[in-house]
């Protein structure tokens, strides 16, 4: 039956160069995306405790069943496997990317790709519909891709796959014709050199960044995958699907000709120029099926689709060339800006330099690396920084291990994660808005990556013309209907520095059962809805899909609109509860994989600075330099991540600035116990129990855990 699935998963063994397929129907119970990817990993990875760079590591790239159907914001694909980034252990993790790759995989006839083994020499994979080739990527005997940056690699693969075809003429391939260029994702020098903050770039700014999968690809000698698909995707009810898209535009779409201000959702093109306040003629750029494009092509041909945090990593830059050019460098060298720059890390290095801790002949000897150029924000500084990381030269060799490992190597980890100078939250993941939003932090701790994978962490607090209590009341009513009708789920009351308010924090606030319920709900939502049914674009969603960003009175369209699309595509009458139930199974599968890797309760702790008083960020922000965006905000006492936390006082909502938030160790450990118990994990180990897995129909998983003595 036509149901949105392409019907096959391409399985490639890089060691043997064998390409086979797995029927998707064997895995449809896991919906798609993260669910199917995790199930494939469970079945195919014979040693789940292996090192990330071990050939036994299995990597999946999956789409969701709604991808490539025109369902809004589902042009995303998700990569999974054992990442190289987290510390001290490298956990099984996920990373999503926009661009055209997922869409094109489905047009070629596949719901996803599984990568196993390790090629003897550098290779790349060419997929033209059902023709799959593993090609030589070396410079001596092959296609001369190894050593190239991500842009050069993609453009070269365009030529190789199309035999120097000149667009816009139609390209004829064996099964059909197309005007589309190949969709390519590839590593750059950073991945070839096994950088743990190496990403995989697709198009200009699409990127599987989180997790350090670029280094994993490098370890497998895999340079790139290029896809041309001339096939199609069949759906259950095409008429209903098309009408749903038309209705969507009418009722929920964002009309760029009649923009509506006053809500918290990003406007189209919310990438760099808005944030850097520099404007040039440009295209807004959307992924296939997009409803609210976030990326941009700028006339000066830089800032190529760079988006969100990656657009302002070079915080000391003042001149256009440095601002624009630095953004391009991240994607060109395929480096995860979340690690090498985001919010706090670049400032960390500048701090070490400005305090005389790092430099030529200093305690951290960086040789002749031009920190003064970075400090001054010149383009030359950005180039030196990115090239050093990509090629692992000089001090860049240490930074390419990730900031956390950098600090460990130079003996600063304990001190700097105590003061918070190094905002390494947990598992070595760099702070985003994590700590200051307790829900964000707790979800990250119970998972494997930064929570910017989803959107429920962001409580809407602003709608023009409405008071904050009004907005929060509406939010809870909308969400409460689907989320247990527990208003305290969104109450993040915390204990004050003098110890007061602890009773409330435990009863209804951040240490409460309500908070545990929210974290569980969010995990199921993330794994089931966002990453398996869609895979949905987090940026277009941005939180406003539930409430606060779309439609009349910013009421939000979730969940009924997506369920309408799902019915048209899949032919199933799914409910939110159905998807959340699958989400719970997927969450438990992820927890089972973590357990198989060896994770225990004691691994699930934050860095020391999260348990102490104060706002450790401010010092870093000051070091960022005069005029820097966040530094300016910090000086005004408006650290951007520390404000507007929702507090429910028992009768009404209010906001409170949580600049004095920190965690109480004992109270948080008690909360963990509540959480484990609530979701069916062992209270002593945090691992799934046999009873829980059996109740979810996951006896096979329980057997697998029992075999390695890691059942909860």
């Amino acid at each position: 039956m036509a149901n949105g699935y392409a019907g096959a998963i391409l399985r490639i063994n890089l060691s043997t160069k064998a390409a086979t397929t797995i029927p998707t129907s064997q895995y449809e119970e896991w919906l798609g995306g993260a669910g199917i990817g995790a199930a494939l990993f469970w079945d195919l990875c014979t040693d789940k405790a292996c090192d990330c760079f071990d050939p036994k590591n299995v990597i999946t790239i999956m789409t969701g069943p709604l991808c490539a159907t025109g369902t809004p914001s589902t042009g995303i694909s998700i990569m999974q496997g054992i990442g190289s980034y987290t510390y001290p252990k490298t956990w099984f993790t996920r990373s999503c990317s926009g661009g055209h790759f997922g869409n094109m995989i489905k047009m070629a006839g596949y719901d996803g790709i599984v990568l196993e083994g390790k090629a003897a020499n550098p290779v790349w994979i060419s997929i033209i519909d059902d023709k799959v080739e593993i090609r030589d990527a070396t410079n001596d005997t092959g296609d001369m891709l190894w050593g190239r940056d991500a842009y050069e690699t993609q453009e070269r693969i365009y030529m190789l796959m199309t035999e120097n075809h000149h667009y816009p003429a139609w390209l004829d391939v064996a099964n059909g014709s197309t005007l589309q260029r190949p969709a390519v994702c590839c590593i750059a020098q950073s991945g070839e050199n096994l950088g743990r903050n190496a990403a995989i770039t697709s198009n200009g700014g699409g990127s599987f960044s989180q997790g350090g999968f670029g280094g994993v690809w490098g370890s497998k000698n895999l340079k790139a995958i290029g896809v041309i698909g001339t096939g199609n995707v069949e759906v259950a009810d095409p008429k209903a699907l098309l009408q749903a898209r038309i209705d969507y535009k009418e009722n929920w779409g964002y009309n760029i000709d009649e923009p509506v201000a006053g809500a918290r959702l990003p406007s189209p093109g919310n990438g760099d120029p808005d944030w850097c306040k520099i404007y040039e003629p440009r295209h807004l750029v959307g992924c296939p099926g997009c409803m609210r494009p976030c990326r941009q092509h700028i006339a000066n041909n830089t800032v190529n689709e760079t988006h969100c945090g990656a657009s302002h990593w070079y915080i000391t830059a003042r001149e256009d060339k440095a601002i624009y050019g630095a953004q391009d460098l991240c994607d060109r060298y395929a480096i995860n800006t979340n690690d090498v720059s985001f919010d706090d890390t670049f400032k960390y290095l500048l701090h070490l330099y400005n305090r005389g801790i790092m430099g030529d002949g200093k305690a951290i000897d960086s040789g002749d690396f031009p920190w003064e150029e970075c400090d001054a924000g010149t383009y030359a500084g950005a180039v030196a920084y990115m090239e050093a990381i990509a090629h692992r030269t000089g001090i860049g060799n240490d930074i390419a291990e990730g900031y956390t490992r950098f600090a460990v190597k130079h003996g600063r980890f304990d001190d700097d994660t105590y003061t918070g100078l190094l905002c390494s939250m947990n598992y070595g993941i760099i702070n985003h808005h994590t700590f200051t939003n307790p829900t964000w932090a707790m979800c990250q701790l119970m998972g494997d990556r930064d929570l910017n994978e989803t959107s429920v962490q962001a409580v809407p607090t602003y709608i023009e013309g409405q008071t904050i209590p009004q907005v929060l009341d509406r939010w809870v009513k909308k969400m409460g209907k689907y989320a247990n009708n527990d208003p305290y789920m969104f109450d993040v009351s915390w204990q004050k520095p003098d110890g007061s308010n602890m009773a409330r924090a435990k009863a209804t606030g951040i240490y409460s059962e309500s908070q545990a319920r929210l974290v569980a709900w969010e995990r199921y939502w993330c794994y089931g809805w966002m990453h398996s049914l869609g895979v949905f674009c987090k940026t277009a969603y941005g939180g406003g899909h539930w409430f606060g960003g779309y439609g009349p009175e910013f009421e939000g369209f979730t969940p009924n609109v997506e369920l309408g699309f799902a019915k048209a595509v899949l032919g199933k009458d799914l409910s939110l509860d159905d998807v959340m139930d699958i989400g719970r199974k997927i969450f438990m599968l992820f927890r089972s994989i973590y357990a198989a890797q060896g994770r225990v309760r004691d691994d699930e702790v934050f860095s020391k600075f999260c348990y102490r008083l104060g706002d450790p960020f401010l010092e870093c922000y000051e070091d960022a330099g005069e005029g820097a965006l966040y530094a300016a905000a910090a000086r005004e006492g408006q650290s951007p991540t520390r404000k507007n936390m929702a507090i429910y006082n028992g009768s009404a909502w209010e906001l409170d600035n949580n600049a004095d938030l920190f965690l109480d160790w004992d109270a948080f450990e008690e909360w963990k116990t509540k959480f484990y118990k609530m979701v069916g994990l062992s209270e002593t180990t945090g691992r799934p129990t046999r009873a829980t897995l059996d109740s979810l129909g996951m006896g096979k998983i329980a057997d697998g855990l029992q075999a390695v003595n890691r059942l909860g």
Partner: protein
Amino acid sequence: MEDLSRRNFLKGAGVAAGAAASGAALMSLTGCEVTEEGSKYPLVFPESEGYLLVDHIKCCGCLTCMLACSMAHYGVADLSLSRIQIVQSSFDVFPNDIRQYQCRQCEFPVCVMACPSGACHIDEEHGNVRVIDDELCTGCGTCIQACPQQPHRTVWNSKTEKSSKCDLCINTPYLEAEGGPGGTQACVATCPMYAIVFTDEMPDQRGDAGYDLNLRTENAESRDIVEDPEFVDEDYPF
């Protein structure tokens, strides 16, 4: 035949002369002789009562129009079957990084003239739209070779081995609303950027300017994001 006004006759003749000047080989496909003064034959066709206009600056390259087009006509999502096409590259320089290519419903429909089987014809019942009758198409590909546009706007269906082209959604079994001139077009109805519009006014047939034009409005987001370097939102992002 309708609308055989002198104005249209002259316009048709003028286009023929222009086309002849630019490509005699192409014109030979139509089987018409063309002189300096115009066609020997009355190369006059009733004007289509509908046209698609695009703004390739406003287009975001999301392919929604293409997915909607194939869904409306064939009930599947298929980029290769779409009769409106987006061509893009992340590495081409603005504004050529994203281009839209739609059928022009030419005043002088070379595809119609070239078709040896009569499959490609003018649909007089539906506003004189230039369409291809799938039943009559023999798959010879002549209309594809004849289309003077680059890329050609007649689309090869490799699944049926026949040609197809934009019919302004006249024959759309999977579109709930009625299509055709005055009706709904799937690409127009779904484009999130309002970068495709329908018009019943024949665009200027010379060059691309009549078909690819500025559809941006004067409000800040539509105008400034794509054009005006002066606009700065002082309140963003905090």
